[in-house]
C-alpha cells in the first residue's frame, strides 16, 4: 500500500486560476443577484437625480426652491397663472398654492411658500440621503467601537458598556431622538472652539446615529464575544499573537462583514427615522428641506394639494425599498446568518 501522503489535489474549486478572497466572492455573489443589482441601479438613479437638483432647479423648474415665491406667477399653456391662488369665489378667504402642472415648472405644484415642490424634493433628497448615510456611518462606527471593546476586553468594561446599552435599549428610539432633537435644535452644540449650529445637518446625523447604536452594538458585542472564544482566535493566542493584532487581523475583518450587512438596512431605517423627526419638525430645519419636511409642508395642504405630501412619501418608499432589497442581497452575499432587530413605530 502506498505510503505517499502528499495531498496535491484540491477539491472543489481546484481549477480556479487565482483564488478569490471572501470579499470578491461576496461581491460576485451580490452582482449575480438580480434584485440587488436592480436596487443598486434604482439607488444610483436616485442619487444622480438628487445630485442634479441645481440643474433641475435652473433649467427645468426655473425657480429657486429656497426662496419664497408668494407673488409670482408662471405661464401655463399661454395663460399666466398665479402660484399662490387666492380664492375668488365665496368670501375670498385663503390662498391655495398651485397644484401639479405636469409641466417642467411646478411639476408637483407649489408648497405654501410658493416654492417648486419637485425641485425641493431633489434638494431634499440630497439631505435625506446625506443624513441617512452619515447617520449610518456614525451608528456603525460607534457600535463597532463599543461592541468590539465590550466584547473583546470583557470584564468590568463590558459590564459597564453593556449596562449603558441596556439603558439606551429600554429607551424608546423615538422618545430619545425627540428628546435629543428638541435640546440640540434649540441650542446647537458647542464643544470647545467648535460650534455646530442648530440648522446644521450634523445634528440630525448625530442624533439618529446615536440612538441606534445599541441596536447594532449589541449584536456586534455578541459576535466579537463568540469570535474571541472561537478556535481560530484561541489558535492565534496560542501562537503568541498579541491581542491588538488578533483584534485587527482576526476579529475586525469578521465584524466588518456584519457591518456591511447592517449598512443598507440601517440606512433604510435612518431614512425613515429622519423623515419621522422632520415630520415632527425636529429634523432638518427650514428653509433647508428633506423628504420628511416636505411631507410636513404637505400635511398642511393634505386635503387641498395632496401631491405635496404624497410625492416625497413615494420617494422615501422607493429609496427605502431599494435599500432594503439591497440589504437582503448584501446579507445573502456576505453573511446569510446576520440578523438585525430594530424596533420601529
Amino acid at each position: 500500500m502506498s505510503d505517499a501522503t502528499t495531498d496535491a489535489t484540491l477539491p472543489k474549486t481546484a481549477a480556479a486560476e487565482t483564488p478569490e478572497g471572501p470579499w470578491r466572492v461576496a461581491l460576485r455573489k451580490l452582482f449575480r443577484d438580480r434584485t440587488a443589482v436592480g436596487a443598486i441601479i434604482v439607488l444610483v438613479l436616485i442619487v444622480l437625480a438628487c445630485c442634479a437638483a441645481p440643474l433641475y432647479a435652473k433649467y427645468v423648474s426655473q425657480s429657486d426652491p429656497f426662496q419664497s415665491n408668494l407673488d409670482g406667477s408662471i405661464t401655463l399653456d399661454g395663460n399666466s397663472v398665479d402660484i399662490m391662488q387666492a380664492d375668488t369665489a365665496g368670501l375670498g378667504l385663503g390662498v391655495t398654492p398651485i397644484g401639479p402642472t405636469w409641466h417642467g415648472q411646478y411639476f408637483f405644484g407649489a408648497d405654501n411658500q410658493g416654492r417648486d415642490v419637485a425641485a425641493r424634493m431633489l434638494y431634499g433628497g440630497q439631505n435625506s440621503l446625506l443624513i441617512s448615510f452619515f447617520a449610518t456611518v456614525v451608528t456603525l462606527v460607534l457600535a463597532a467601537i463599543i461592541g468590539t471593546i465590550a466584547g473583546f476586553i470583557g470584564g468590568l468594561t463590558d459590564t459597564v458598556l453593556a449596562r449603558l446599552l441596556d439603558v439606551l435599549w429600554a429607551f424608546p428610539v423615538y422618545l430619545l431622538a425627540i428628546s435629543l432633537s428638541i435640546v440640540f435644535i434649540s441650542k446647537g452644540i458647542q464643544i470647545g472652539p467648535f460650534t455646530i449650529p442648530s440648522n446644521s445637518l450634523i445634528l440630525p446625523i448625530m442624533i439618529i446615529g446615536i440612538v441606534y447604536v445599541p441596536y447594532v452594538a449589541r449584536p456586534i458585542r455578541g459576535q466579537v464575544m463568540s469570535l474571541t472564544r472561537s478556535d481560530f482566535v484561541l489558535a492565534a493566542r496560542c501562537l503568541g499573537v498579541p491581542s491588538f493584532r488578533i483584534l485587527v487581523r482576526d476579529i475586525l475583518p469578521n465584524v466588518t462583514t456584519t457591518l456591511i450587512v447592517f449598512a443598507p438596512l440601517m440606512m433604510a431605517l435612518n431614512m425613515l427615522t429622519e423623515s419621522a423627526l422632520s415630520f415632527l419638525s425636529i429634523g432638518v430645519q427650514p428653509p433647508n428641506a428633506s423628504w420628511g419636511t416636505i411631507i410636513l409642508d404637505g400635511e398642511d395642504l393634505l386635503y387641498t394639494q395632496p401631491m405635496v405630501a404624497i410625492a416625497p412619501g413615494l420617494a422615501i418608499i422607493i429609496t427605502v425599498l431599494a435599500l432594503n432589497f439591497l440589504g437582503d442581497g448584501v446579507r445573502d452575499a456576505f453573511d446569510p446568518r446576520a440578523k438585525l432587530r430594530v424596533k420601529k413605530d
Partner: protein
Amino acid sequence: MLLPILRRLAEMLFVMFGISVVVFGIFFATPGADPAARIAGRNATPEVLAQVRHSFGFDEPLPVQYVKVMEKLFISRDLTSFVNRGEKVIPAVVESTPVTLSLVFGAAVIWVVFAIIMGMIAAATRGGIPDRLLMFLGLVGISMPVFWVGSVANLITQSRFHHTFLFSWVPGLGYTPLTQNPGMWFKQLVIPWITLAILYIGLYGRVLRANLVEAYQEDFIRTARAKGLSERRIMVRHALRTSLITFVSMFGLDFGALVGGGALLTEVVFNLPGVGRLTYVALQSLDLPFIMATVMYSSFFVVVANAVVDIAYAWLDPRVRDAR
C-alpha cells in the same frame, strides 16, 4: 429561585433609574426649558419670576430637584404638570393607557394573524411566486413611513373617498372609549389599526418566513417526515411551533415598546389621545413632570416586556428553561 427574581428586579430598576437620569439631564440641558418664566406669565416682573422659581423649587440644586420630582412621582404620586398647572400626571397617564392599549392590541391582533398567514404561505411556497410576491409586499410595508401611511389613509377615508360607500362609515378622527360606544370605538380604530399593523405584518411575516425556512432545514423536520406526519402537521406543530420562539419574543418586545408609547406617530396622525401622543405633547411643551412620567411609564413597559419575553422564551423553549 428568589435570588434571580431579585436580581432581575434590581436590573429593571437600574435601567429605569438610568433612563430617568438621562431624561432629567436632557431636560435641564435645554435652553429656555426653565419653566419658571413660562409659569410666571408673559409680562412678569423679576420679583414674580423669582417667587415662582422659589415656590416650584427651581432654585435648588439639580440632584435635589431630581429627588423631589421622583418623590412626587412615585411616593406621594401627586406630581403635577408645569404647563397645565394642577393637572396630576399619574391620572393623565392612566387615562391615556386604555387608548394606547386599544390601538396596540387591535393592531397586534391584525399583524399577528396576517403575519402568520403570510409567513406560512411564503414558507410553504418558498422560491415560488406567492412567496416572492408576499415578501415584496412585506418589504413595501416595512419601507413606508407610518405617519405618511396614516396621512394618506386620512386623505382617502376622511376626504377624497369619504363620501363614497367605501368609507362613508369612517367617523371623524379621535377616540371613543370601548365602554362608552363599542361600535364607535371599533370604527375609529380600524384605520389606525391597519396603518400600524402594515409595518409589522411586513416585518413579522418576513421574519417568520425566514424562521420557518430555517426550521425546515432542521433535522427534526426530517424526523417528523420520517414519522409519516402530514405536511400540515409538520408545518404547524413542528416548524411553526419552534419558529414561534423568535416570533413571540419579538412580539413581546414590540408590544411592550408600543404600549409604552412607541406608537407615537400613529397616535399623533390619528389624533388618538394615547400615551405616545401624551409623551409627544409633553416633549414639545417641555413639560418635565409629564416627560418624566411618560418616559418612566414607557421604559417600565419596555423593561417589563424584556422580562416577560425572557419568561415566555423559557416557557416556549425548554432548552432555555433549564439554564443549560
